[in-house]
C-alpha cells in the first residue's frame, strides 16, 4: 500500500478507526526500509519513540477523547534539531555519537500536537551547503529528479516528504536551506519571519539568520505544521511576542486585488531560461487570479551574497568554537589542550565547514573587522531597507526560488563561489528577517521542478501562505 497521506486524512482515518497511528507509523517505516537505502535521506530512525507516541494517540481514540491537530502524523526532523535520546549529528563527524539530553521546542510542540517523529534527516554539515553534498554521511538523491541533488542544506527533509517517506518535515533555513531544497524536490517549503519559531534546541550555525520551518506536500499542510511550531518560547530570547495568526483560515481568502511586487533584480543574468519561463507563467497565473503586478526596485539585491557570506561565516566561526573535543563528540588526543583542540577540529570538520570557519575568523580578526564584518552589517541594513520600501507599495514580492533547476550530483562541488551564487534569490529575505515560501511552479520538460518564491512583510506569514495556496490550487505545479 502506498497511499499518500495528508495531515487531515491521517487524523480522520485514525478517528474513524479505519487504521491506527501505530499502523500508519509501521507503514512509513516499511516504505523507509524499502527506499531509504537508495535515497540516503534518513540518517537515524527512532522507532521506539515513534511507536510510543503512536500508542498514546491510539489510546486517545480508544478512550473516545478528542484528537490533537497533528494526531498520528508521521514527521521527519532535520538532523541539526535536537531530539532527546535520539542521535543528532548535524551531518558532521564531529557529532557522530552525540545524543542530546533535551528536545528542541519545535519538536516538543509537534509531539504535544500528536505528531509521530519518525527519525532524523540528512543535511549539509552544520547546514552549510546548497546541495546536501557536504554531509559527512553521503549525498541524498533527489526523488523528483533522479541523479540530481535534492538541494540543501535541508536536502534530506525535502527528499523524505517528496518521496512520501514522511507526511511533513522540519528543516532549517539560514540563507535558503528550506526554500531551495523545497524548490528542487517540487514541494512547498516555508520559512517564517525571524523570531516566529523558537530556535531552542536548533544547533546554531548563524544565530541572527537561522530559522526552523516546515516542508509538506501541500500548502495547507505546511500551514498546519507552522501553526503548531510558531509562537513565543521563553527558552529563546529572540522568539517574538508578535501574535500568531490563524494560517489555515487565511488560505482560502481571495487574492484578487493583492499587489505583487516584481523586481528585475531577481531576473538577472545567470538565470536559467527555462526557470525564467516557468516563473513568468506563474506570474501570469496570479494576474488571472486578479492580482495586480507592480514593478519594484530592489537595488541592493546584487550585494546580498557577499553580505551573507560575511555575516553567516562570522557567526559560524563563533558558534562552532564549541566543538573542541571536551564536552561532546569524538576527541583526537594531543600533548597539550590546544593541540587536542586543533587536532579534534581538524579531523572532525569537513572541508566546507573548515572553509567557512577560516573565512569567518578572518572577517572578524583584528584589522579586518571594520572592512568586512561591520561593512556587511551596514549593507544588511540597506538590503532590509529595500524590502521596507517595497512593502509600502506591495503586499508580497514574487521571485524565482533558485536561478537554476536541480543540478547533477557532483556538478558543482569544486567551485564554492559558484555554489554560493546559487543562493542569490533566497539570502536577501534571510538577511532582512522576512517570511518566505517556495511553492511548486511547473517542471522543466515535465521533469525538473521549479519553485516560485513569495516574500511577505515581517510576520506576514498568513499572506505568504494564502498566495502560495492560490497558486497551488490554480495548478501552479503543472505549469
Amino acid at each position: 500500500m502506498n497511499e499518500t497521506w495528508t495531515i487531515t486524512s491521517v487524523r480522520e482515518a485514525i478517528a474513524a478507526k479505519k487504521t491506527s497511528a501505530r499502523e500508519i507509523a509501521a507503514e512509513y517505516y516499511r516504505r523507509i526500509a524499502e527506499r531509504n537505502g537508495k535515497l540516503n535521506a534518513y540518517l537515524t530512525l527512532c522507532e521506539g519513540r515513534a511507536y510510543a507516541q503512536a500508542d498514546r494517540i491510539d489510546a486517545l481514540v480508544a478512550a473516545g477523547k478528542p484528537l490533537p491537530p497533528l494526531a498520528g502524523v508521521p514527521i521527519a526532523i532535520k538532523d541539526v534539531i535536537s531530539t532527546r535520546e535520539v542521535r543528532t549529528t548535524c551531518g558532521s563527524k564531529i557529532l557522530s555519537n552525540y545524543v542530546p539530553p533535551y528536545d528542541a521546542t519545535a519538536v516538543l510542540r509537534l509531539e504535544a500536537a500528536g505528531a509521530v517523529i519518525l527519525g532524523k534527516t540528512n543535511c549539509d554539515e552544520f547546514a552549510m551547503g546548497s546541495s546536501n553534498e557536504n554531509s559527512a554521511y553521503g549525498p541524498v538523491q533527489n526523488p523528483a529528479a533522479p541523479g540530481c541533488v535534492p538541494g540543501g542544506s535541508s536536502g534530506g527533509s525535502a527528499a523524505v516528504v517528496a518521496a512520501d517517506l514522511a507526511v511533513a518535515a522540519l528543516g532549517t533555513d539560514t540563507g535558503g536551506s528550506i526554500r531551495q531544497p523545497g524548490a528542487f524536490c517540487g514541494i512547498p517549503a516555508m520559512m517564517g519571519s525571524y523570531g516566529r519559531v523558537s530556535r531552542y534546541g536548533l544547533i546554531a550555525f548563524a544565530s541572527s539568520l537561522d530559522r526552523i520551518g516546515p516542508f509538506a506536500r501541500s500548502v495547507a499542510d505546511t500551514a498546519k505544521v507552522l501553526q503548531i511550531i510558531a509562537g513565543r518560547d521563553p527558552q529563546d530570547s529572540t522568539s517574538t511576542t508578535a501574535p500568531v495568526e490563524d494560517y489555515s483560515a487565511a488560505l482560502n481568502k481571495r487574492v484578487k486585488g493583492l499587489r505583487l511586487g516584481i523586481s528585475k533584480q531577481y531576473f538577472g543574468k545567470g538565470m536559467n531560461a527555462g526557470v525564467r519561463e516557468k516563473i513568468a507563467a506563474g506570474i501570469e497565473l496570479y494576474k488571472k487570479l486578479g492580482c495586480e503586478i507592480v514593478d519594484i526596485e530592489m537595488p541592493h539585491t546584487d550585494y546580498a551574497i557577499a553580505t551573507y557570506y560575511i555575516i553567516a561565516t562570522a557567526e559560524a566561526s563563533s558558534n562552532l568554537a564549541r566543538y573542541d573535543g571536551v564536552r561532546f563528540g569524538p576527541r583526537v588526543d594531543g600533548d597539550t589542550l590546544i593541540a587536542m583542540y586543533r587536532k579534534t577540529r581538524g579531523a572532525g570538520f569537513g572541508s566546507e565547514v573548515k572553509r567557512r570557519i577560516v573565512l569567518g575568523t578572518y572577517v572578524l580578526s583584528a584589522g579586518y573587522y571594520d572592512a568586512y564584518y561591520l561593512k556587511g552589517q551596514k549593507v544588511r541594513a540597506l538590503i532590509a531597507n529595500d524590502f521596507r520600501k517595497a512593502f509600502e507599495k506591495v503586499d508580497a514580492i514574487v521571485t524565482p526560488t533558485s536561478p537554476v533547476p536541480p543540478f547533477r550530483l557532483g556538478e558543482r562541488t569544486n567551485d564554492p563561489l559558484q555554489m554560493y551564487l546559487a543562493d542569490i534569490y533566497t539570502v536577501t529575505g534571510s538577511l532582512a528577517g522576512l517570511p518566505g515560501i517556495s511553492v511548486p511552479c511547473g517542471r522543466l520538460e515535465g521533469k525538473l521542478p521549479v519553485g516560485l518564491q513569495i516574500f511577505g512583510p515581517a510576520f506576514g506569514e498568513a499572506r505568504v501562505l494564502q498566495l502560495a495556496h492560490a497558486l497551488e490550487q490554480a495548478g501552479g505545479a503543472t505549469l
Partner: protein
Amino acid sequence: MLRVADLAYLDLSEAELETYRAQIDEILEYIGKLNELDTSKVEPMAQVLSDHQTADATLREDLVVPSAVAEDVLKQAPDPEPPYFRVPKVIER
C-alpha cells in the same frame, strides 16, 4: 592563512591550506564589491528584531528553576570524570 587557522584552533593539512588560500582569495575578491557602496551614513544591523518584539525576553523575572541535566550532559563527553570534564594538562608546573 596560518594565522587565521591558529586563531580558529584548526589543524589544516598542506593541501587544505593551498586549496583554501586560492578559494578564499577568490571569495574575498568577490566580497570586495561591497566597497562600491557608500555606507558612511548607515547604522549597522546586528539583528532584525526590535526590542518591543521580544519585550518580555529582555525583562523577564530572574527566577531560579530546577535543572538536573548535568549527568546527561557529562555522558556525552569523550573523557568525563563526574562532575568534571577531563582535558590534557593546561598549566605546566
